[in-house]
């Protein structure tokens, strides 16, 4: 079973890898976006960590809801409401249970991904974060490592796609040949589940 500590480790490990990969995310975003994905997520997750420390939420659902709320407030770009909705929606599904199973986490993330689809109006193949998240959630039944691999391949597979959502969609065919920054950061979020399961927060 996964407790609030596991979820704190997950978010902390995500923040650490966003920090580490911020320049790469921004470089990817400078090719097809507005070159702020790394710095925006860095700012958002720093605010999340500060709030988690201050408010010390005691359930998995509360950790995710708090993190999502902070991301919506502080990111400043489209990834804020999108990641915020993903985590908040998932947190809502988990409710105030003190511990949840991996299957419940998968179900909650599925609801979060549905929320992201509804908010952004994107579908698989549009070259967005969904192209990493959907395969990851599909693979969660086989464990965190399978989800991590699915998300990483999903992110890589966005390279030949033409963007149909967001700033990148204005580029039309010129968006082809670049890995999507949102799918890339989503693969970091999923990879952090493995770190959290190993007991680390990757700091």
């Amino acid at each position: 079973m996964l407790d609030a500590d596991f979820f704190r480790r997950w978010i902390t490990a995500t923040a650490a890898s966003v920090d580490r990969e911020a320049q790469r995310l921004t470089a990817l975003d400078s090719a097809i976006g507005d070159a702020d994905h790394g710095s925006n997520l860095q700012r958002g997750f720093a605010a999340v960590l500060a709030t988690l420390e201050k408010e010390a939420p005691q359930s998995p659902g509360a950790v995710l809801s708090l993190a999502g709320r902070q991301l919506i407030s502080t990111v400043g770009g489209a990834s804020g409401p999108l990641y915020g909705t993903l985590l908040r929606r998932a947190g809502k599904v988990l409710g105030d249970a003190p511990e949840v199973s991996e299957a419940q986490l998968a179900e909650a993330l599925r609801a979060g991904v549905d929320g992201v689809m509804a908010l952004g109006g994107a579908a698989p193949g549009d070259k967005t974060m969904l192209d990493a998240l959907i395969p990851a959630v599909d693979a969660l039944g086989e464990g965190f490592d399978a989800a991590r691999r699915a998300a990483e391949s999903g992110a890589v597979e966005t390279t030949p796609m033409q963007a149909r959502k967001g700033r990148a969609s204005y580029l039309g065919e010129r968006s082809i040949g670049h890995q999507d920054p949102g799918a890339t950061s989503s693969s970091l979020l999923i990879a952090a589940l493995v770190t959290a399961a190993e007991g680390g927060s990757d700091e």
Partner: protein
Amino acid sequence: MSDERYVGIVLVSHSAEVAESVAGLAKALAGGATTVPVAAAGGTEGGDFGTSAELISAAAAAVDQGAGVAVLTDLGSAVLTVKALLAEGDELPADTRLVDAPFVEGAVAAVVTAATGADLDAVVAAAGEAYAYRKA
């Protein structure tokens, strides 16, 4: 001062200058509609380009007279942030509506219509109609 309550208008742009300027333009074209509460929520709290959920919430609270609030946005994260705040349920005044309209033209139509004392539905409809005006 009458005790009439007006629909409030919030203008959300990635740029503080754009939001402020469009607010000024809409008020001027509405004949200096000083009675309509209009608030700009542009850029991030730090003064950069982007969207701030906090500035949007504060602007909506500031223009809410109880007759509803119409929110007009420019692009991308401005749209998504307002939608996410609406989905939260308690972040924006009751009867806050994201208006599907072009930013500048919609803002003018919204302020002009609100100045007549129209209700939220009429303001939203007038702003949305701005899409139908073809320029070429």
